[in-house]
């Protein structure tokens, strides 16, 4: 019996496979179509619609949106209270990001360099577990912790450190009647909530720094401090930048945390929430939304210029 060099296609599946084998571009096109449609229409499309809205304006008398191109809405962004909202939010996001980076780095470094076996599992669990529980529950829990009758006040008094807490609350701007009604409180909750998003990318970046780079650096005469500055930190920087994109943009856009923990002064997210809801001022809400996008674009451009992505 002789064997045929080529077998006949088996069934309809086999026939389709043969078509794809002969025309690989067709397969690529079919595979890419759904994600491209999703990103193109649903994602970029809606973003574009948002951008378009920001160039309309609201008629003050009728409360209706005037569908006519204008920069008046953007002009409103730079008026008194609106500028305050933007500045307040950007400063908060920047502080949250910097402090998160400082807290996250040693944890990420330990996890990447030293933790092995069950210690590593424990690390992932500890970092990720807060992400599994409801965000609202955590924020309300913090409200209780930070309240005047809360555990922090109690603890401070028990340690006879009440004066320190009162001192912090007595500070202008950042202070307030209690931690849960102050910027300090808002800040603490932001750092708590977004910290995992800083730790994980930093840890991933540090994980990719081979141990023998550190040995090579020491071998070439660098003491641990020099090795950190010239080898470890530059190689971890893309991870820190990735983490800071999360912490920074999430803080810029959040409207729940400052509403539950904080004073009555608005942040960008809250402004958008109020404007698109009761006020019905979609154009100004859209203009506010464009602010974080512009800031993030600028931030990434700066990071790229400083060489943060050179090793990627």
């Amino acid at each position, binding site marked *: 019996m002789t064997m045929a060099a080529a077998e006949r296609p088996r069934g309809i599946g086999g026939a389709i496979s043969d078509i794809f084998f002969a025309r690989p571009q067709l397969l690529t096109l079919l595979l890419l179509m759904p994600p491209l449609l999703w990103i193109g229409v649903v994602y970029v499309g809606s973003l574009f619609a948002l951008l378009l809205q920001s160039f309309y304006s609201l008629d003050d008398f009728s409360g209706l949106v005037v569908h006519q191109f204008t920069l008046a809405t953007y002009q409103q962004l730079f008026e008194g209270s609106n500028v305050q909202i933007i500045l307040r939010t950007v400063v908060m996001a920047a502080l949250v990001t910097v402090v998160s980076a400082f807290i996250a780095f040693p944890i990420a470094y330990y996890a990447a360099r030293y933790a092995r076996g069950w210690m590593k599992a424990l690390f992932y669990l500890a970092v990720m577990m807060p992400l599994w529980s409801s965000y609202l529950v955590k924020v309300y829990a913090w409200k209780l912790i930070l309240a005047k009758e809360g555990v922090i006040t109690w603890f401070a008094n028990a340690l006879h450190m009440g004066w320190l807490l009162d001192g912090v609350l007595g500070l202008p701007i950042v202070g307030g009647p209690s931690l849960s009604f102050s910027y300090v409180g808002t800040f603490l909750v932001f750092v708590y909530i977004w910290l995992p998003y800083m730790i994980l990318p930093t840890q991933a970046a540090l994980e990719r720094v*081979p141990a*023998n*780079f550190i*040995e*090579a*650096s*020491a*071998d*070439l*005469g*660098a*003491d641990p401090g*020099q090795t950190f500055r*010239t*080898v470890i930190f*530059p*190689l971890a920087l893309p991870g820190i930048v990735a983490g800071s994109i999360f912490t920074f943009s999430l803080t810029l856009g959040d409207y729940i945390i400052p509403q539950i923990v904080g004073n009555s002064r608005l942040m960008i997210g809250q402004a958008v929430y109020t404007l698109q809801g009761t006020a019905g001022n979609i154009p100004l809400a859209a203009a506010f939304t464009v602010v974080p996008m512009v800031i993030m674009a600028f931030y990434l451009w700066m990071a790229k210029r400083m*060489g943060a992505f*050179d*090793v990627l």
Partner: protein
Amino acid sequence: MSPAVRFQNVSRRFGAIRAVDGVSLDIQPGEFFALLGPSGSGKTTCLRLIAGFEQPDEGHIEIFGETVEGVPPYRRNVNTVFQDYALFPHMTVGENVAYGLMIKGVGKAERETKARDALAMVKLAGYEGRRTAQLSGGQRQRVALARALVNGPKVLLLDEPLGALDLKLREQMQEELKSLQTSLGITFVFVTHDQGEALSMANRVAIFSEGKIVQVGTPADVYERPTSRFVADFVGSSNVLSPEVAASHGGSATWTSLRPERIEVVATGAGVPTGYASARGKVSVVSYQGAVTRITVVTDKLPLVASVPATTPFNKGDEVTIAWPMAAMVSMGDAA
């Protein structure tokens, strides 16, 4: 003059494993010294002890007469070429080479000149501005070499320096390393599991087995006069004769090494030359290797491997007489 590197009864344990077990060794200044052994034999740990990445649990280490226990790697005047080169990906080739000088605070202009010279020395002139990712394996190897040598180390350590290169490149680099070492006069200590590499490059070789040095000597010493079955087997290949077999062929009643290339096949009808031992047997394996053919001859006592010129063809099952000079039987003493 004190030796370049001195190990006195050095041990290093990892948990229950004695990676280095009571090693004593003197490496002379200007030597090209090979640490040879199978993986896990402790040779790399010895290199890391010299570099300072490991500290001995017991014993004493000196580099040019100075005690180095407790001295961190960044305060030792030795440099290492790492097995996978460990070039910094966020720096250009030039910055990599100048790294050690930058750390020492050498001015920009001076370190750039020195880096350029070092790259020229390893035949990579003009590569300063390249990214390390753009280099081939052989080029990375050269950059790693330049990065170490630019610091003017007293001892250069090389960890399996040619392991990742293909055969042709490896042979070329062997020659270059050898001539570089001769011209610089720096002590080179290199780790390898490749006995051919050790024999062709080194002035002296230390052979490691299970954390201990089993023999130290020139390449000719360890090849021609192995003192143990392990060395006879690991360095080149060898027929190991038991004391009884060695005695029956006129050798001394000790474990004896007989190199395959010393065994000849006696032509049919010709007698066994004087001063030769001989045996008859049947060819069981024929392996053509280009320049030579390796045949395994099953004699009444044991199978013997012989390397013979490829000019005479052999077939499996041929009845042959083999002979070897009495002097080719090297007694390894009582070592098993």
